[in-house]
């Protein structure tokens, strides 16, 4: 028992030392080396995870169909299996087309295409790890604070950078704030805060009480610079989400609950906005 107590104390002290040293001096190079070594494996497993998710969804759908028509379900399964490879290619093609479309919509911006290779290990934080090709994109410089987008809209911002990979804080995380405006006649502005813990949503605050807001209104980035990210604002006009509920606050502002424009739970490919051309 004494040896176990000593072991616990030793491991506790090592962990605490690592925590303090990483916080004070930074041990990012260790994580960098780890990311570099494991990102191919992570990328492969994330792809498999995405396929598993789609299969899971297909299976659930099939289950419902089974109740209605067993024969039809069998046929669907057969065709699904036969066309799985084709569908996968088609979906990837469509996504790449959308990404290209996005480039056409914002021609003044420089992008870096990246794939989602992992997520934060816990459920408490909304952070994804993205990686890019070390061969194709050797000269790019990704920096903390850079916006990350996907064809559907805003995804988040870079919070940590490794060789050929970065951690991205999603807009639904509780510590994320984005300056936003509602796309309607009044064009009121406010701040969209992450509320993932409240059901994968955002909450737009500081909307002037006199502004008219309706459910279904689009919320876009306003491009205004917010502390503490004065130098890392999001480009204006990127879709953040849609208003799903309006709440009249007691003070001079009203609030709105937003559904994110992008499906942040199943992201596969994103673009890091490197800056203006």
């Amino acid at each position, binding site marked *: 028992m004494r040896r176990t107590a000593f072991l616990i104390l030793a491991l506790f002290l090592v962990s605490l030392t690592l*925590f303090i040293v990483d916080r004070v001096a930074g041990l990012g190079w260790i994580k960098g080396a780890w990311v570099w070594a494991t990102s191919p*494996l992570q990328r492969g497993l994330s792809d*498999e995870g995405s396929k598993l998710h789609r299969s899971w969804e297909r299976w659930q759908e099939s289950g419902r169909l089974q109740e209605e028509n067993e024969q039809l379900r069998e046929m669907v399964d057969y065709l699904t299996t036969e066309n799985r490879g084709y569908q996968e290619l088609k979906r990837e093609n469509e996504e790449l087309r959308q990404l290209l479309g996005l480039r056409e919509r914002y021609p003044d911006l420089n992008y870096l295409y990246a794939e989602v290779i992992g*997520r*934060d290990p*816990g459920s408490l934080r909304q952070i994804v790890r993205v990686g890019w090709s070390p061969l194709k994109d050797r000269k790019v410089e990704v920096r903390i604070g850079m916006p990350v987008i996907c064809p559907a809209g805003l995804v988040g911002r870079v919070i940590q950078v490794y060789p050929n990979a970065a951690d991205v804080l999603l807009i639904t995380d509780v510590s994320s704030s984005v300056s936003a405006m509602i796309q309607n006649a009044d064009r009121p502005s406010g701040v969209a805060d992450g509320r993932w813990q*409240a059901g994968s949503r955002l909450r737009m605050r500081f909307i002037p009480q006199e502004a008219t807001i309706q459910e279904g209104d689009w919320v876009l980035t306003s491009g205004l610079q917010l502390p503490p990210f004065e130098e890392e604002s999001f480009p204006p006009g990127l879709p953040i989400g849609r208003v799903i509920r309006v709440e009249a606050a007691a003070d001079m502002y009203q609030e709105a609950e937003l559904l994110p424009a992008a499906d942040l739970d199943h992201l596969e490919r994103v673009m890091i906005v490197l800056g203006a051309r």
Partner: protein
Amino acid sequence: MLYAAIVILLLLALLQVTVMPQIPLLGVRPDVVLLLLLAWVMVRGLREGVILAFIGGIALDLFSSLPLGSHALALLLTIVAVGLLAAPLHRGNVVFPVAGAFAATVLYNLLLLTFSQLLGEEVAWLASLGRIVLPLALIEAALIPLAYWVTDRLDQRAQRRTKMRIG
């Protein structure tokens, strides 16, 4: 046996950040690393439990944006608590592993939230507890009998092999 557990643990840590986010249950992703550690400390004891908690914690830290040592500290404290309180009581009783897994999941996540708060991040305590920690604790409590059974079988197999070698 310990070396095999380390390999399994590292593999689970990798699955935790790649595959598990794609198959959420009750809106949260099951914590397979914590699950294995809980089962291990109950079946194999505190000594092996803390060694694995440290290794598993460092592995999770490498995949996380939190500072190195955060998950290791949280897992160590959680596994020590389970090893000292729940593990000695569990033999022949299914209630203790289930209750232990539930309490340990809450403790582990509260520790991680505390670290985030200490690092200056905004923490939504009530929303995190209600929407994430409690559903996750329910899932871990529901899955612990399976994890316990698998670990117990591995343990029995290892013991048989040791006896055969001695014999």
